[in-house]
């Protein structure tokens, strides 16, 4: 009898507690229903500095202005991002706002799989996007995303080290190579290079192709489409890269040095130069960078090649990272509204510039204050003074498979496993 009573009591408590549970739940879901949640998948893992900070600031502002919107951010580093992106693509739970790269190697496969929503091109007419910057995100005349910034490849250099030793900024490639020897003799690494990620090596060649040929965008695109790299300028560019390796322009072991280590070599004053994109311009304000380096940061573009038709103003620049909206998003309209908000000129463009993070893909001239950091001014000058812009680098012009092969090839080239001729033969093979 006692047992029976006890079990009855237990059952009673369980039922009431369960009822309590369900009661709480239902009230929860009711409040959620009013709110719209936009899921963002970002490659900006650092939300406190750089582009991540700008992104987060804009999200916070948007939520403040639109209390019914809730933004959930999931952020992963580039490589992990691409892997997870693919996992999302195969499943059905694609987040709403996505980070995307306006390069065929990334975007074409994604667009062809029908994963991205088409954006209304005409609605961005007064957003001030610079000419050609939307090309990377377009396919067959339709727009699928918006670029975040203009990326320019250049040399950062330590003015103080240069001045103290009486070195001059090289104006020709031969001078650059000659400088390598002089700097090595002083016991400093001439140019810090991230060879482990391979793409900086590809871009180095890409940059040289522009210096050899001048306007080279159409030529590169045709080469990738026709799988034909027989133009002698290609072999020359590869040879010039190999020459730089042979004269010791890069640090010992550069082919296995990763991004962070290469950057730190320069940021700690152990290297005189650092070949990297304009997205590193925030080094000038970054407290983690050695003060001596931070305050003496200079920038110059890849010097001209003797006998080449290009000028120093034919620059390697493109519009890389940006955003796209998932085609299957349940909150597509709200997501596009958020995207549009972010790219109103007074938002992304202005914030990014004022914080010295990057140059947006929009016209930011209205936000110039005159108090910019040295790299900001230098990069603006490079872009404003450019006579031609290469657009997407050659390694990103093909499929993602071509990207892997071409970047692997760049590394094999610098370690001497591939000759310049063989390198481009491999490239042509990979395009087929």
């Amino acid at each position, binding site marked *: 009898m006692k047992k029976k009573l006890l079990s009855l009591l237990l059952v009673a408590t369980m039922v009431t507690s369960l009822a309590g549970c369900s009661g709480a739940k239902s009230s929860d879901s009711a409040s959620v229903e009013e709110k719209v949640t936009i899921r963002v998948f970002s490659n900006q893992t650092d939300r406190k500095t750089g582009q991540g900070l700008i992104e987060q600031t804009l999200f916070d502002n948007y939520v403040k202005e639109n209390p019914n919107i809730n933004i959930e951010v999931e952020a992963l580093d580039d490589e992990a991002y*691409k*892997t997870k992106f*693919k996992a999302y*693509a*195969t499943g059905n739970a694609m987040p709403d706002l996505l980070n995307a790269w306006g390069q065929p190697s990334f975007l074409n*496969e*994604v667009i*062809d*799989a*029908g*994963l991205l929503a088409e954006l209304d091109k005409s609605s961005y007419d007064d957003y001030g996007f610079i000419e050609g910057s939307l090309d990377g995100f377009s396919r067959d005349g339709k727009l699928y995303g918006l670029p975040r910034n203009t990326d320019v490849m250049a040399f950062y250099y330590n003015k103080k080290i240069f001045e103290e030793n009486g070195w001059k900024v090289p104006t020709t490639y031969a001078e650059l190579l000659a400088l390598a020897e002089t700097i090595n003799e002083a016991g400093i*690494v001439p140019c810090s290079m991230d*060879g*482990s990620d*391979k793409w900086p090596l590809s871009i180095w060649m890409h940059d040289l192709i522009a210096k050899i040929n001048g306007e080279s965008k159409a030529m590169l695109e045709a080469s990738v489409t026709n799988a034909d790299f027989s133009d002698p300028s290609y072999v020359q560019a590869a040879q010039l890269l190999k020459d730089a390796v042979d004269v010791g322009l890069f*640090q*010992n*072991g550069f*082919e*296995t040095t*990763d991004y962070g*280590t290469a950057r730190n*070599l320069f940021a700690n004053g*152990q290297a005189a130069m650092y070949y990297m994109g304009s997205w590193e311009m925030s080094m000038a304000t970054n407290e983690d960078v050695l003060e001596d380096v931070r305050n003496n940061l200079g920038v110059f573009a890849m010097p001209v090649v003797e006998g080449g038709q290009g000028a120093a103003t034919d620059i390697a620049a493109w519009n890389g990272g940006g955003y796209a909206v998932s085609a299957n998003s349940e909150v597509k309209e709200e997501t596009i509204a958020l995207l549009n908000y972010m790219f109103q000129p007074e938002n992304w463009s202005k914030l990014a510039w004022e914080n010295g993070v990057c140059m947006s893909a929009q016209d930011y001239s209205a936000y110039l204050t005159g108090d910019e950091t040295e790299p900001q001014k230098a990069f603006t000058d490079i872009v404003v003074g450019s006579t031609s812009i290469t657009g997407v680098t050659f390694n990103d012009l093909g*499929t*993602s*498979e071509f*990207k*892997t*092969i071409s970047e*692997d090839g760049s*590394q*094999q080239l610098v*370690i*001497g*496993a591939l000759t310049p001729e063989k390198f481009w033969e491999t490239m042509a093979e990979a395009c087929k």
Partner: protein
Amino acid sequence: MKKLYSNKWVIFSLVAPGIITFICAILAPICLSFYYGLTDFSGMGSFSFIGLENYKVLMTDTSFWLSLRNSLLLAVGFICIQHPLAIITAAVLDRLQGKAEGFFRCVYFIPNVISVAIIAYLWKFIYNPSFGLLNNILKIFGAKAEVNWLGSGLAIWSVLIVLIWHGFGWGMLIYYTGIKNIDTVIYEAAAIDGASAKTTFLRITLPLMKPVIQVNVTLAIISALKQMETVYLLTNGGPGNETQFLANYLYKQAFNSFKYGYGNAISIVFVVICLLATVALNKIFAEQKTA
């Protein structure tokens, strides 16, 4: 109780959880992999059936053969370097007794406790040509040149050393438990008969450890073939493809090149190689038993 176990339904219900897990988590994915291996699936969107094309490409893919060679090289390194050292260390540890025994057991096992990511970065810094520990030590001994440990030619050996060092603790711990399980009476008898340490080790410890060695060697070969994370973080196969390993190459093809179909074809070959290795090892050890 006996009656209960002879009831087929009871047997079934006891075995079912294991079988179902095996089917869902291992067998079904392998079958799916085989299916995708016959397609040109990029990982998203539509795909078409291309028969054995992926396998044909695989046969002439030099990077694949290189990564297979590296994986086998690692297996050989495990068996010829890591395991003999592990057995000897385990035997010595067993002799040490007392506090020293526990201390060294811990020390040798530490690399296995540390996360793989940290291991990889630790060694990256040790190997760094300009400020790495290794080159600085060499400098003390008068070496002038900065050796590029992860550079072309040397890289594969540098990576092998890290992997062998990293897996050492596990192997040793299993051998150590094996040795601890050997009846001490046998050693006492040997000592009375005047057997030296060397003879005791060769005539008593080793033969009695045979089952442990068998398990350990099988595990080592499979872990060599499966090696991925340390290599991915240390060199990601570079420079070129010199330190490419099977699993890492598979990952690269499927996720970096978006050749999901091809990646799956590699994974099928991978499974076959692992199975063959296991079967071959079992055969070898079985023959020794009967001999």
